[in-house]
């Protein structure tokens, strides 16, 4: 096996979910006593390559080109497939982010490979390594087997342990030789500024649901988050109401998160929301309806009016 981790940048930094891909590569390598390599793509990478190069990879390919300043599916597909062909990589591992979700299927197509998205664990079936992933809004797990010589996968960061530290690999600049045509042009990224921790990787998250009744109450939710050093997340209902931008949405069609502590405040606990918080260590539910489904997945629950409880929490913390 010849394993390649595709590491990505996000807003000038290494994407936190790269860690899950590296761990998956380490686990795959261990199974067969193999090594793994990595590729880092982007532009003006600064110290990112050094930061990435401490997990025992054999080689770290660096593709640093203006074409990769903004994420675009086709040039990334071309670059990674060129690298994989040239160096005979047959396991391509990426992170479960909106970037890899976008270009990995295209990459799999280019390499005539089967792909599994959002792999949460490796398992063995009749001596063959298979991949387990969540399906049906996270309500079921499915074991899949890839039959092509090359396997392509993205990894669910909420289920993976941290990668183990290791030595630095040989750094190799790779000329991907790709060009960006006028088929697609990047126009802009509309992004809400936030001083709080990144929702995808925060240890603590305060989740707000429709029960908060208005956008104004987000200020109080934010005050609780700041007391806890937490990120703010939300249900689709809150995002649809326009109270928060979409990148705050947690769930099947939003972010999957795995904080140590999750507060579900005025959240009913619909399956699509629950799908995003499966990996949370402790879920605290605050809801005035004792029958709300959130209490079936919560670890700690309080049946009460959130407009009473939240200010008291801020006060008491």
């Amino acid at each position, binding site marked *: 096996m010849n394993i390649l981790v595709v590491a990505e940048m996000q807003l000038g930094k290494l994407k936190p979910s790269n860690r899950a891909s590296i761990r998956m590569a380490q686990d795959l390598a261990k199974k067969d006593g193999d090594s793994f390599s990595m590729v880092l793509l982007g532009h003006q990478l600064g110290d990112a390559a050094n930061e990435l190069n401490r997990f025992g990879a054999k080689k770290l390919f660096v593709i640093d080109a203006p074409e990769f300043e903004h994420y675009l599916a086709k040039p990334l597909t071309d670059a990674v497939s060129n690298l994989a062909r040239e160096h005979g990589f047959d396991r391509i591992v990426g992170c479960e982010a909106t970037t890899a979700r976008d270009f990995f299927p295209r990459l799999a197509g280019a390499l005539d490979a089967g792909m599994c998205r959002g792999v949460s664990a490796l398992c063995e079936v009749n001596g063959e390594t298979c991949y387990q992933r969540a399906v049906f809004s996270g309500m079921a797990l499915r074991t899949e087997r890839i039959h092509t010589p090359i396997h392509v996968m993205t990894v669910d960061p909420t289920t993976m342990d941290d990668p183990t530290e290791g030595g630095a690999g040989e750094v190799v600049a790779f000329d991907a030789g790709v060009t960006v045509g006028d088929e697609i042009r990047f126009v802009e990224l509309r992004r809400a500024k936030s001083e709080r921790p990144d929702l995808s990787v925060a240890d603590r998250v305060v989740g707000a649901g429709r029960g908060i009744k208005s956008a104004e109450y987000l200020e109080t939710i934010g005050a609780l988050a700041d007391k806890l050093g937490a990120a703010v997340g939300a249900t689709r209902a809150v995002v649809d109401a326009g109270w928060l931008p979409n990148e705050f949405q947690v769930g099947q069609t939003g972010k999957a998160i795995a904080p140590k502590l999750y507060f579900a405040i005025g959240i009913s606990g619909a399956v699509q929301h629950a799908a995003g918080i499966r990996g949370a260590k402790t879920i605290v539910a605050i809801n005035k309806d004792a029958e709300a489904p959130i209490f079936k997945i919560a670890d700690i629950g309080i049946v009460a009016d959130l407009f009473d*409880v939240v200010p008291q929490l801020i006060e008491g913390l």
Partner: protein
Amino acid sequence: MKVLVTVKPVADPNTPPAAWIAEQEGKGGSVNDVANYFDLIAVEQAIRLKDIGVTDICIVSVTDDSKMAQVRSAIAMGANRATLIDPEGKQLGAYQLAASIAHVVKKEEPAFVLMGKQATDDDASQVGPLLAGMLGWPQATFVSEIGFNDDRSRVTVGRETDEGVEVLDVKLPAIITCDLRLNEPRYATLPNLIKSKKAPMERLKFTDLGIEDKPRVTVEAYSLPPGRSGKAKMVADTAELLTTLKDMKLVD
């Protein structure tokens, strides 16, 4: 302008997971099918684009006759016709689905293809980008805003990404996959459901398309995720909540 919209019949997302698994494993279990919600958003979008020059909306579905009702309900929203590809009892993988749809795209030469961003049963999110790669077309996935330029040669889309809304300017023809906030799909009315029975329907068979017939990825097993305890410790008031959190060392 001609537009293709893909529609996949899927199990109702409210099906209990154990029943869904039983049905997937062929061990019985009754499961209601619905049209994949993201695909209905795609159909709705195509209908809304009739104002700016879309004249022909063709639904494409890889499915057998038993799921015709879901395809009909999509047509009845306001599509003109459909092309069905019968998998002939085969379990098809993402590659074969994309290749089947590509066959129809090459024949129809639409201005663009609208799809759902993912199927809510497989949660694969693969068919759109695979199809784009096969056709050598640009792709715009997770789209929640669409606007066309004056000569309809390009489209400006807003994509929902981890970092925020990314705006791209894309040359047509392209593959566009739809996210939740693009629109709210309309319901098909009863008269339109009746009318949809007369909509032209072309039927193809998967084995006639010359696509490799072994899936690249197969399903080996299903299981239920390790449940959460299901027994929340209920506290009486905020004071008890705070002491519980402190005792569990979750807050200082």
